[in-house]
């Protein structure tokens, strides 16, 4: 293979300036007529978002990882690395834990503990070209299935693999397919849930942007096994690039005969269409999603009947998450035993997590089930930035919970996370440090669920509202004795009395933070103090007279004119005027660091 510049251009890469790198590379290649010397590949996300914009240089079988680049660096990379084979040290990844630089992508600690079955192809495939995907065995699984297997054989393979749904609840995929296959109807549907509503999770976006063919291939195989003629991919509208790439991929799959009539000369006909969501979290829930596809307000329905019996337009419908679908071609190609050899007894295969928040190496990590949280956070994630103290990791989004330090050695699988009061969810993993207030975070999630509640169940609609009001009071310093118990009580009732997963799990963030961080609640209620110095009503900003350099920056930038003093003298904040916007705190030069937060507030 000739040398290649592989430019990471998913949404986050583009947000960090990948476009300019692409332009620089193309311009230089054209100007110097270097088309024969190397190729430029514009791919999906490479996973280590922290390093964006990055370029992988494929040279002599190595994948050299250059990170945080500027457009003017591209010329250097072409001249030195591509043409001469020299490595440019200062562009290499520097690992904050090992304090070393790494050349090859596989040597970087972030990638070492991962098992990138699904994401690995993102760096090799240019999503615009179906032939890239086919070069790495893409669509051979469809061929294998249509030529060799009967629908029931496929279902048995998936059942044997132990694959469970990646969208949240972890229902065994093979079993779901079997239910839908057995349902009696001449019309059936398969649906791909790409609503990815969990804030902080973006693995589905990355898969669809970087390698939507793998998802499409999975859906085709599922449709064949179940006997569906029509497939729908429901994507959230907040993902324009994923929608675009998916559209291109579907067209190409059609042209190659993987979709349409008599697929690969078999008697199997199948079409896929894309439906865009419109910004309602609850539409990720399967029954709400289906009503949304039908063009109605997306409110969940009681189950049973399950969609496998009566789903879209009342017909049997099998719905799976993006990542679930992407696993299918791999299982068909490599076998059920291969897949079930990875992971724990009850959770098989890999799971993609988005490691975000207060962590050094933010990005998407794909790990075998059973790995511990500590391995992910310390070894892959490289720990917490700025020498701060780890406090908790939140999994499962608004339905999940906060897991404290004492449980970091928990091996990750569906059951263990549920036991800890959280859940697998879709794979968001938000790391929080000492500067995160757990009461504030609980309030944040509950407020989210309150706004996203569809309003059907009174327990969910009113229960979350009442809990938010109590949490508002606590964070504003108006907490009362008995509030904690009251929260626990309402929380348990909302859990019991709600119809869908949103209400059933909405209280989890509150219940887990009370369970693991009761001290913080008590500090807010009894001492009117926010230990993490977050809750506005419970803190004050002050200028440390010992540290103040009299540089005037804070006074000039204070929007409320609350800061006074003489240049080169010492500045002070008038607490009556201060609105606690925090600008002085962020703007005070790091050589002084004179602005401090204190709690309880100065009266």
């Amino acid at each position, binding site marked *: 293979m000739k040398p290649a510049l592989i430019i990471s251009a998913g*949404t*986050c890469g*583009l*947000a*960090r300036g990948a476009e300019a790198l692409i332009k620089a590379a193309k311009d230089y290649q054209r100007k110097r007529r270097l088309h024969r010397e190397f190729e430029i590949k514009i791919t999906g996300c490479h996973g280590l*978002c*922290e390093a*964006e914009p990055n370029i992988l240089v494929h040279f002599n079988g190595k994948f050299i990882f250059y990170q945080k680049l500027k457009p003017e660096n591209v010329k250097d990379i072409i001249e030195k690395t591509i043409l001469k084979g020299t490595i440019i040290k200062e562009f290499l990844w520097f690992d904050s834990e090992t304090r070393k630089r790494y050349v090859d992508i596989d040597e970087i600690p972030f990638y070492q503990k991962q098992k990138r079955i699904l994401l690995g192809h993102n760096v090799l495939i240019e999503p615009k070209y179906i032939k890239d995907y086919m070069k790495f065995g893409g669509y051979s699984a469809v061929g294998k299935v249509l030529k060799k297997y009967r629908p029931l054989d496929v279902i048995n393979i998936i059942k044997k693999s132990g694959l469970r749904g990646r969208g949240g609840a972890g229902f065994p995929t093979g079993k779901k397919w079997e239910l839908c296959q057995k349902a009696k109807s001449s019309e059936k549907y398969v649906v791909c849930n790409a609503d*990815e*509503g*969990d*804030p*902080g*999770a*973006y693995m589905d*976006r*990355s898969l669809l942007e970087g390698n939507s063919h793998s998802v499409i291939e999975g859906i085709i195989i599922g449709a064949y096994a179940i006997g569906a003629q029509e497939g729908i991919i429901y994507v959230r*509208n*907040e*993902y324009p690039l994923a929608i675009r790439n998916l559209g291109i991929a579907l067209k190409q799959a059609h042209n190659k005969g993987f979709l349409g009539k008599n697929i690969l000369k078999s008697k199997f006909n199948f079409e896929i269409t894309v*439906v*865009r*969501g*419109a*910004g*309602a*979290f609850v539409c990720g829930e399967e029954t709400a999603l289906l009503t*949304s*596809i*039908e*063009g*109605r*307000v*997306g409110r969940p329905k009681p189950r049973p009947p399950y969609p496998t019996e009566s789903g879209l337009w009342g017909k049997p419908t099998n719905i799976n998450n993006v990542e679930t679908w992407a696993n299918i071609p791999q299982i068909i190609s490599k076998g059920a035993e291969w897949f079930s050899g990875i992971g724990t007894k009850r959770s098989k295969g890999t799971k993609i997590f*988005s490691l*975000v*928040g*207060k962590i050094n190496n*933010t*990005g998407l990590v794909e790990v075998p089930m059973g790995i511990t949280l500590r391995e992910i956070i310390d070894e892959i994630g490289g720990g917490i930035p700025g020498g701060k103290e780890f406090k908790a990791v*939140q999994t499962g*989004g608004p339905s999940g919970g906060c897991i404290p330090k004492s449980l970091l050695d928990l091996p990750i699988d569906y059951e263990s996370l549920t036991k800890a009061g959280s859940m697998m969810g879709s794979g*968001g993993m*938000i790391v*929080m440090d000492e500067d*995160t207030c757990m009461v504030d*975070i609980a309030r*944040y*999630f509950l407020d*989210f669920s309150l706004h996203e509640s*569809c309003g059907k169940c009174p327990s969910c609609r009113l229960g979350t509202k009442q809990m938010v009001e109590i949490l508002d009071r606590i964070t504003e310093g108006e907490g009362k004795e008995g509030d904690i118990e009251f929260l626990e009580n309402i929380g348990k009732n909302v859990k019991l009395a709600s119809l869908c997963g949103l209400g059933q799990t909405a209280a989890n963030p509150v219940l887990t933070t009370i369970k693991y961080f009761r001290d913080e609640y008590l500090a807010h209620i009894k001492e009117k103090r926010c230990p993490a110095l977050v809750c506005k009503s419970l803190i004050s900003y002050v200028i440390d007279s010992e540290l103040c350099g009299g540089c005037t920056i804070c006074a000039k*930038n204070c*929007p409320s004119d609350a800061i006074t003093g003489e240049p080169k003298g010492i500045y002070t904040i008038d607490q009556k005027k201060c*609105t606690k*916007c*925090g*600008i002085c705190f*962020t*703007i005070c030069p790091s050589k002084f660091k004179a602005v401090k937060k204190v709690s309880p507030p100065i009266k």
Partner: protein
Amino acid sequence: MKRVENVLREHRYQRSHIIQILQDIQVEFNYLPKEALEYVSQRLKIPLSKIYSIATFYAGFSLNPRGKHLCTVCMGTACYVRGAAAILNEFERKLNIKPGATTKEMNYSLETVNCLGCCAIGPIVVYDGKYIGEFKLKDIGRILKGRA
């Protein structure tokens, strides 16, 4: 109304496409004009109340005209733990509007979103379609002065 008719034609006048139709109308006009909704209601024979219930249920729709510039602050969890709330507060203060509103002279609209899937480089603000990662409080002034 010709633009609305075009959208309807593209969707083959299918009632089940109503959400997609509204999305395309919003792309066309930047919001959902009342007249357009009435027109859709007549052409597709869907009660206007039903169209409004959809347009108000889904957070992606705006029933009011948006300003010349659109600032969207991500309030997803990852952005939130990295200080998105302070950024939103400051936008609210500087523009003197709440999220979902537009300034009087129709220059700026302020909105929030639950997550854009760029959580790794949060906090994120989208200004007129351009994603700005690792957004700092002091960037707000720069943006509003037209130097994004």
